[in-house]
């Protein structure tokens, strides 16, 4: 229980960074950050807290777009904010998602929210997101997060060993392709999402910073397990999807206007909660910057591809 205990202690550092864990599996709420004055020392503490908790929430950060980008860079180099949507005017690093626009798409396509990790159909998926809740409903429109590392830890050893050697296929689904066509921005790192070949990633990856194993398939983009029949793939993936999203491995976050989150795509799935009327009065407008990620590496081989 020593790992649990150290992660679960609320902590206020000498330079005033206040870190409070939100669950035993993942995520902490952080206070004591002044965007106008972030020292190197504070930046280092933030990166350590991020590696420890996989998601950091800053409930009252209220960044300007420039501050949003500058803050995101504290956690690493950036990549494009979306594979399908254009950026907001004047800020190529930022894309915006508006609930009304999503609701209108949903009314046409019938799309339902799924747990996912962003853009895992790319060879080098984004390593994480820095997310700004610009305007959210008074109630509703939360985001759910699941820890793929806690979920792996709670599998029995035979299942862990079974998964360790496997490789899964990832592809952009119909929803991504339809959005790419709609926005006329269908490329990722120079390749049209229509032309991205089926990508392979290990089923269990080693986290590039901490080395912790995490499950790296997701309901959004994983289409099968290499070498398995479709029925075998479906059985294993359905089990993993139900297991990872058990309440014991998840945290639900209620946004407030101006809240910022940093989450780690190598350790976390996420899912929007659409429990409000997207086409009614309430607006949920959020902006995202993405951190560049490396090619995921297999846990079984000690982090080597």
């Amino acid at each position, binding site marked *: 229980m020593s790992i649990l205990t150290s992660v679960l202690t609320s902590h206020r550092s000498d330079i005033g960074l206040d870190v409070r864990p939100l669950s*035993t599996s993942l995520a902490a709420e952080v206070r004591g950050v002044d965007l106008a004055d972030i020292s190197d020392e504070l930046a280092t503490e933030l990166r350590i807290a991020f590696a420890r908790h996989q998601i950091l929430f800053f409930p009252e950060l209220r960044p300007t777009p420039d501050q949003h980008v500058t803050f995101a860079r504290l956690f690493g180099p950036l990549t494009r904010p979306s594979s399908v949507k254009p950026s907001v005017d004047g800020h190529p690093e930022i894309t915006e998602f508006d609930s009304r626009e999503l609701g209108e798409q949903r009314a046409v396509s019938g799309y339902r929210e799924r747990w996912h990790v962003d853009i895992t159909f790319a060879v080098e998926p984004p390593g994480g997101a820095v997310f700004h809740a610009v305007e959210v409903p008074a109630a*509703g429109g939360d985001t759910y997060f699941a820890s793929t590392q806690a979920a792996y830890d709670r599998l029995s050893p035979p299942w862990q060993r079974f998964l360790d050697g496997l490789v899964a296929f990832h592809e952009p689904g119909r929803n991504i392709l339809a959005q790419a066509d709609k926005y006329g921005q269908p490329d990722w790192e120079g390749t049209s999402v229509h032309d991205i070949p089926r990508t392979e990633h290990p089923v269990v990856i080693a986290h590039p910073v901490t080395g912790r194993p995490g499950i790296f398939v997701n309901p959004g983009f994983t289409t099968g397990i290499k070498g398995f029949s479709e029925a075998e793939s479906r059985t294993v993936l359905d089990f993993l999807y139900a297991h990872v999203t058990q309440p014991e491995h998840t945290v639900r976050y209620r946004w407030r206007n101006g809240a910022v989150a940093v989450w780690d795509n190598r350790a976390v799935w996420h899912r929007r909660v659409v429990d409000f009327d997207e086409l009614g009065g309430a607006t949920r407008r959020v902006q995202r910057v993405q951190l560049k990620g490396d090619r995921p590496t297999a846990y079984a081989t000690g982090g080597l591809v």
Partner: protein
Amino acid sequence: MTTTALLDDERLSSVDIEPVTGVIGAEVTGVDLRRPLSPDVVAALTSALLDHHVLFFRDQHLDIDQQIAFSRYFGDPNPSHPVPGTGLAEQPEIYRPRSPAEATEGPPSWHADHIYMHEPSKISSLRAVSLPPVGGGTMWASQVAAYESLSPALQGFLDQLSVVHPPPPGFRAQLAAGGAPGRWNGRVIDRLDEVEHPLVVVHPESGKRSIFLHPGYGGGRAGGSRIPELSTTESDALVAFLVAHITAPERTVHFAWTPGALALWDNRVTIHRPVADYDPDIDRVLHRVSLQGEPPRGVPGNRFADR
């Protein structure tokens, strides 16, 4: 947010009801549950409970007697279960659920309290006594939102079905082995049999339709809820689909307990489960009081429409 201004003990106070998700759960402030409540406050809370299904009160720090007294504003307490020996020795109305992290048979199950009785509990209250520093929350899911978000064709199909609810195997065995009888809704209980309820129920106060289903006890098929009008495979598939649908993030709320907090929920339209994500060496203690209910009624045309 709804604010009800009330004259209470010659002191103007206000009960604030703030929803915490889009469909289920509201946090209540502006009321001290340790003191007697005026009829206006009780009416405001009753109305909020109908609207939000579960109410959360923080920093109340009630003792056992105060929890029972508060719960009585909404109905008459039953013993913790229809078999003796499951509540506190001095206060059989108080149930201390087993710490979920102690369980070894897998994650805790979603359930409605006493759904296996002919008269399931209508309302329960749950009070934080001792908590882990992080984790150990409780989740509730709205069976009203679950029903309303289904397509009309499926709603019409479900309206006519019913559910067989097996009692928890341990309780059934305890009475079958000649254990002392229990009490429920004022009657002596000396055996527990499977009961049947409609799958879709009409709320006696709000008139709203909701699903009334939980997966069942014991984890296995023998203890699971089943739909008697369907074949076993059809029933298994439909129950699994409905449980996943009811408990989807769009229809749930997660309450992180804090010292002194109390939750009050409408057991006729919700299912709930603890979250066993904390160190099992830590003692998580909550106290529950459940209130006498009536047999659930089906929609017009259902064979349980007129009970």
